[in-house]
């Protein structure tokens, strides 16, 4: 406290008056963006490291922790073969085991995932070329693909997306909105036993995973 009573108050008022005329600290978003460090992790976007690989470890912690289950993770698997989609927590558990193993430096079972057979996509390229790789001709291209394969395989759609430059979501959306386009071969049994037919591939994966965990060779 100062010797003269009231001088502290006057000092304070002097300070606020000086700050009144000082430049302001506000960042006028959205006109002006904050200066974000390159290393900042808080962006809602997937980052790549200097070698061009994804920084995301696919630990699925974010998807598990998300309280409103708005994060669900999807993408192309590490071999670029098919689209994987991991929804909210129910698929988390088995996945986490795998990521824990990867962090621990132990071999992760190579999942022989055969949900989609490897397929020949040259007809798709031909069809896309015939339409001059024009995304506007999406419907005719999709109809041609269906004519060629009998249905719309996911790999074909992905390939089409890659060829034409249209987003996969766009291609998929277009394909799914027309009744005459189908994603399953018409010969596929309509009602596979729930959890059996669809899950057989996963069962193989899980058994391989279990073998890797227990150290035994997969059956």
């Amino acid at each position, binding site marked *: 406290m100062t010797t003269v009573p009231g001088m502290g*108050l006057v000092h304070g*008022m002097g300070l*606020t008056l000086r*700050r*009144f005329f000082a430049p*302001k*600290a*506000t960042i006028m978003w959205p006109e002006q963006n904050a200066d974000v460090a390159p290393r900042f992790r808080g962006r809602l976007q997937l980052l790549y490291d200097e070698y061009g690989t994804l920084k995301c470890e696919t630990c699925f912690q974010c998807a598990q922790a998300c309280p409103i289950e708005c994060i669900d993770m999807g993408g192309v698997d590490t071999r670029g073969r098919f689209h994987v989609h991991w929804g909210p927590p129910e698929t988390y558990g088995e996945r986490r085991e795998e990521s824990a193993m990867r962090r621990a430096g132990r071999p992760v079972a190579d999942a022989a995932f055969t949900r989609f057979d490897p397929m020949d996509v040259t007809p798709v390229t031909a069809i896309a070329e015939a339409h001059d790789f024009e995304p506007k001709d999406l419907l005719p291209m999709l109809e041609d693909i269906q004519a060629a394969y009998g249905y719309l395989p996911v790999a074909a759609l992905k390939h089409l997306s890659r060829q034409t430059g249209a987003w996969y979501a766009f291609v998929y959306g277009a394909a799914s909105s027309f009744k005459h386009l189908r994603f399953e071969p018409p010969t596929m049994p309509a009602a596979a036993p729930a959890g059996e037919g669809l899950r057989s591939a996963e069962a193989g994966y899980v058994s391989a995973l279990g073998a890797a965990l227990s150290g035994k060779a997969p059956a």
Partner: protein
Amino acid sequence: MTAITRSLGNVSTVGKVVIPLLVLILVVGPLVTVLLATVIGPWVVGVANSNLGILRFVVAITGILLFSIPAAFIIIYMELKVIAYMNLRVGPNRVLPAGAAHSVIAGLKVLTKEDFSPTSADKTVFTWAPVMVFLTAVMTFMVIPFGPGLVGAPLNIGLLYLFAVGGMTVVGLLLAGWSSFNKYSLLGGLRSAAQVVSYEIPLTLSVVGLILLAGTLSIDSIARQQAGWVWDWFVFRQPLGALIFFIAGVAEANRTPFDLTEADSEIVAGFATEYSGMRFGFLFFAEYVNVFIMSALIVTMFFGAWNAPVDINAVLGFFHLAPFWVYLQPGELGLGLLLVIAVAPLLVTLALSAPVYLLRDSMPAWKALVVGFILFNLLVIGALGLAAYIDWDWVAGLVWFMLKAFIFVFVFVWMRGTFPRVRIDQLMGFAWKWLLPAALLNLFITAFAIVILKSAGIH
């Protein structure tokens, strides 16, 4: 007739409404005007003449009510913006440039919100308490002279009225606190009662010295006594009184550092905790109207009211000059006036746009002309304002009064941006142990000085 109906059929839907209305207005309008001018007008004037007092009162009330709203808006905006600037923020900046209409929009928002009252509240009291708070605040405006002659009710006991009505605010706050059925509100109400009642005494006592000096209770006359130079203001004859009045006024208006009644970090918002919607709006408005009243009172009592700090007549007389506006009498130009009105805008616009056009190379001619026109308009407005300032002394008074009042509003806001809040016991102790003896001391010194000076024959 058929032609008219056919052409009406071609008219759009809007036209079908507008055209008959237009016809109606064109026909009825003149008729009504004539009727008003010949029959009703004289009657109204007659009635008004015979009831001039009542008419003046009604006009004053309406004017004050209408004035209090924009005044509160401006002060709220000032508070937001000034505190933001002191906090190194920008503050409101989305509605109009620099967020100028922010408080207006906020007021509209308050109007549209749900008017909620707690389950166990005393509904009647709960509803009418904010009205009471607001009305007592506005009623105080009646005796404040905004300029020479610009006063709602020129009472000769204006000061007495002021303190009597101003003290009633606490009743409203107490009712609001009590009826909310909330302990925070109750504490806030009790605090406001203790605080306002305590500070009422030094507030009143601090002006008693001034009353002795001025010899009157009429605010108008106190204001007139401060005409002349800046050192004729009462603040230089009553510095202690002015200081006490200022401090007590801050407490009376419940402003930082004495804003204990709505201490948000202690009792959340005090008496206003349970209020929402326009009831809260009334409380909120009343607070800012109180701020304006307090600064207006300080200006009126101690800082020369509406008088300019410079005695312009004395200055001119010192240089042996008549007031310069005597030389400029537009009426003497005669027909030349018409010529001036026709030619001057064009010439001045061109004259103002020429330098703009020449100095900025990238400016096209039409833009320069627009700029010139705008500058000309500003010039005209300024000239008209100056003429009004010169010719009507109430305009000059109003300008000076508002300027000074808002400087004090700024000080109030500035203090809010700087100080923390005092504690309730410190607040009461300060009022009773320091302010009250100081006010009494001021009173005795003043009375003593007056007696001495009177007996010495000096005034």
